């Protein structure tokens, strides 16, 4: 099955080594970025460059640019779904107080998970005020 070249019209030549070299430069930048000590710069060099690198790998190595549009849409939709998940969940999970609740800093459960104890196994009795 060597047919997909004709089928999708892959670009015949790409200089993969050159792309790899660019990726390496970007990697160096993202590692060096935090040493500037400026938060904004770190964010850009870390996540901005991660996006660029991911885009380059997807485009050039995975050949997503010459892939069928339906595949490009698929990937985009999957990513959009994750954004949707984030914005659906964040109001509840990401904050420490909401419209009608706040996280309880002094919360002590009856059982500390991971440190197994016998307490809580039998029916709890009413304890005093919080």
């Amino acid at each position, binding site marked *: 099955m*060597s047919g997909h070249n004709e089928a999708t019209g892959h670009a015949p030549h790409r200089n993969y080594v050159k792309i790899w070299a660019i*990726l390496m430069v970007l990697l160096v930048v993202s590692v060096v970025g935090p040493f500037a000590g400026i938060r904004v710069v770190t964010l850009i060099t870390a996540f901005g460059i*991660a996006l660029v690198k991911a885009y380059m790998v997807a485009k050039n*190595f995975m050949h997503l640019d010459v892939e069928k549009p339906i595949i490009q849409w698929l990937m985009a939709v*999957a990513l959009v779904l994750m954004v949707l998940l984030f914005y659906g969940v964040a109001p509840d999970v990401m904050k420490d107080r909401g419209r009608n609740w706040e996280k309880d800093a002094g919360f002590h459960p009856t059982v500390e998970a991971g440190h197994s104890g016998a307490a809580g196994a039998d029916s709890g009795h009413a304890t005093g005020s919080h």
Partner: protein
Amino acid sequence: MSFRTIATTRSAMGMPTGRLAIWWVLVSEVVIFGGVLVSYIMHRLAHPEWADQAAHTNLWIGAFNTFVLLTSSLSAVLAHQAAEQGNGPKAARFLFATIGGGAVFLIVKAFEWTSEITHGYTIQSGGFWSYYYTAAGIHATHVLAGMLIMIWVAMSALKNQDLHRVENIGIYWHFVDIVWIFLFPLLYIAK
């Protein structure tokens, strides 16, 4: 008895079946990693104090592993190029280089984790470490699975068989690479 069914050889939408399938695999992988990363990002933003835990990760090991994975991606795409030219043995050699890259990645990771665990930073040590080990662990499992499948693909590529699989496993490998590209800043740089 041949396992190659007529169904497999058809291509009603003008795209090889294997490649189509691998993209669907990636859709399911995007949402799996998406679930972990969305949860992690949310908690990370909610807990600035996790930065103290993150400060103990080793940036240089992370950077080295990024380098290894990016390079292995290069050899994977070169293997694809060789396979397109019909040169199975050459493709297999590049694939073995990629497998080697994956092995280096996992070995480095094993040493990194061992060192961290002996310093007392286990999966129970805090929220960041839980996500750190879980996200990187799921990723490492994917690297391992990709290597095993790649060995199988390379063995048949040596005999000039099933060369289309070289591209498919390559697409998967690049995806695993992309996941790491995001894990690297999320786990190692953001402090």
